[in-house]
């Protein structure tokens, strides 16, 4: 039996290159370099670790602009078998409902899966909703905040990190697992595999091939909208540059400001 694994990845802007457009007052992400969302790299690595032990076919999917192709090629370079780019102008500005719906439609079109792996959350919107959203559409169980996952018969066993401890759960496949950032160490891609991937190419899907009406996707299919936006007031900093000799003065000021509390009145 060959396991069918789907990995959901998203290309996110590199935080360093994001800035706020001072005229239009919007976040300008378009010029930022794209990187694979860090937790999604851990999801892919979890899939590859399963494939190291068990015969498996890994399909990586992403919904995003055409430029996200490079992220898929990178994943194939690391060992994924197939890359699918779900791209369409109509998908723009989707919220988590519309994103989950679109990705679920892609999974349906792929036809079968035993396991879906996703990142726990993304660094750009960071809701952590898309994994569970897809699981709900697929009527599959979900195991969130995982640090490791292994296959046992027709079930998976995963470790989850919760606020107060580590839970080990077992649930039947098909299932969806979301991986925590830093859960494992992602391997590097090999040049040979990357070249193979470029030769093989990336498949694409749009709203028509997914059978989704345009008003179900993107901004039109999104129940939530962004009303307005405010830029948090940046706290005024003292901006004092000091030398070693001035440390006593600083400590004194911090004590006076109650930033350093002496004695027991800690949480006062």
């Amino acid at each position, binding site marked *: 039996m060959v396991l069918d694994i789907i990995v959901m990845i998203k290309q996110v802007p590199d*935080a360093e290159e994001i800035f*706020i457009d001072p005229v239009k007052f919007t976040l300008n992400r378009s010029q930022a370099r794209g990187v694979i969302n*860090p937790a999604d790299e851990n999801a892919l690595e979890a899939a590859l670790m399963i494939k190291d032990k068990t015969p498996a076919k890994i399909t990586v999917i992403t919904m995003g602009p055409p430029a996200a192709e490079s992220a898929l090629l990178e994943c194939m370079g690391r060992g994924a078998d197939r890359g699918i780019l779900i791209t369409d102008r109509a998908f723009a500005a989707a919220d*988590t*409902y519309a994103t*989950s*719906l679109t990705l*679920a439609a892609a999974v*349906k079109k792929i036809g079968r*899966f035993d396991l879906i792996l996703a990142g726990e959350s993304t*660094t750009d919107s960071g*809701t952590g*909703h898309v994994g*569970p*959203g897809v*699981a*709900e*559409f697929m009527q599959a*169980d979900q195991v*969130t905040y995982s640090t490791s996952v292994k296959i046992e018969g027709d079930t998976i066993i995963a470790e989850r*990190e919760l606020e*107060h*401890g*580590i*839970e*080990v*759960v*077992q*649930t039947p496949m098909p299932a969806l697992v979301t991986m925590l950032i*830093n859960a494992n160490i992602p391997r590097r891609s090999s040049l040979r595999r990357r070249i193979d991937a470029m030769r093989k190419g990336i498949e694409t899907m749009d709203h028509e091939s997914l059978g*989704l009406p345009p008003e179900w996707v993107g901004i039109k*299919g*999104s*129940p*939530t*909208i*962004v*009303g*307005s*936006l*405010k*830029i*948090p007031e*940046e*706290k005024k*900093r003292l*901006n*004092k*540059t*000091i030398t*070693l000799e001035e*440390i*006593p003065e*600083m*400590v*004194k000021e911090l004590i006076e*400001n109650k*930033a350093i509390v*002496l004695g027991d009145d*800690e949480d006062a």
Partner: protein
Amino acid sequence: MMKMRELINCVVPENLDEYRDVFVYIEHSDGHIKKSTLEMLGEGKKLAKKTDEKLVGVAVGEELTPIAKEAEEYGCDIFLGTESPDLKDFASVPYTNYLAEMIEDYKPNIFLMSGTREGRDLVSRIAIRVMTGVAADCIELDIVENTKILSAWRPSFGDKTIDQILCRKHRPQTITSRPGSYKVAEKQPGNKCDIKIKKVTVPEAMKKRKILSFRPKDRLDLTSAKKIVSGGLGLGKPEGFELIRNLADELNAEVGASRPVVDLGWIPYEHQVGQTGQTVRAKLYIAAGISGKIQHTVGMINSENIVSINNDPEAEIAKVSDYFIKADLYDAIPKIIEEVQKYKNGKAVVGESPEKAA
């Protein structure tokens, strides 16, 4: 073998006015409501007053009567529960099922959940089941004047902007909140709550997930730490964290770190501050040997007092610092420790000049 829900667009309900009252999902453990939920009960009460609606606590679990009593003390007008021995432990599928049932029966206008691991696991499944939108990780909630529309504010991209999320046509208007962002509800002595607990039998199909083991372990929670001393690559060697730890102990602070030192294995990931680590709001944040790249500063910029130590006068961290100590951290940290100790053993007193005391 693949069964799936009908893929369906988020349908707009026919009569929005039928939806009323404020639901709060009650998370509980050991027979008590969790603190993060108490924050939502306080916030829920405030919103319910504005829309002249009721505050309704909803919970799923094994034994809910004590929870209902506590919900009454904290101001709930109504408590709805679904109870079964099979619902003792949290599991996404049955919990989604019973919460969605309560939502579909009651038709609430607003649904608040705390953004804990449990809340975040549940919320989007429920939202898709009942066909509504979610605003995640909100830090501020209000009602748009003269309407029953929830105005939910959430930080986006590392807190660089705060977006207002509106869910104008779908109900319930659902959010998760960032734990620690709101005041805990006040007790309301004499409050009367209408308690309705339903007992159910969980179908076999929903009981296939098993918890094999649980190892208690507290995650280091830097998000609620009052003081943090962080070290970066400028430490030069893993042993540098001993010095960081000494200062942290002296100040009764937690230890933080930048990403490269975590990647190098000098300190575990749970100490990482920044975009891919924890976002902190300390009263005092000390950054030693950290250059101040944006991926680090987004995680600590909301701290009240920022002190940095760096031997490069051009280091970016200076821009976000109240005190930028231009020095080698191996000279500066012992000096800070020494100074603080002077105050602790009474050799220096606040109000006197430290030079005189020294």
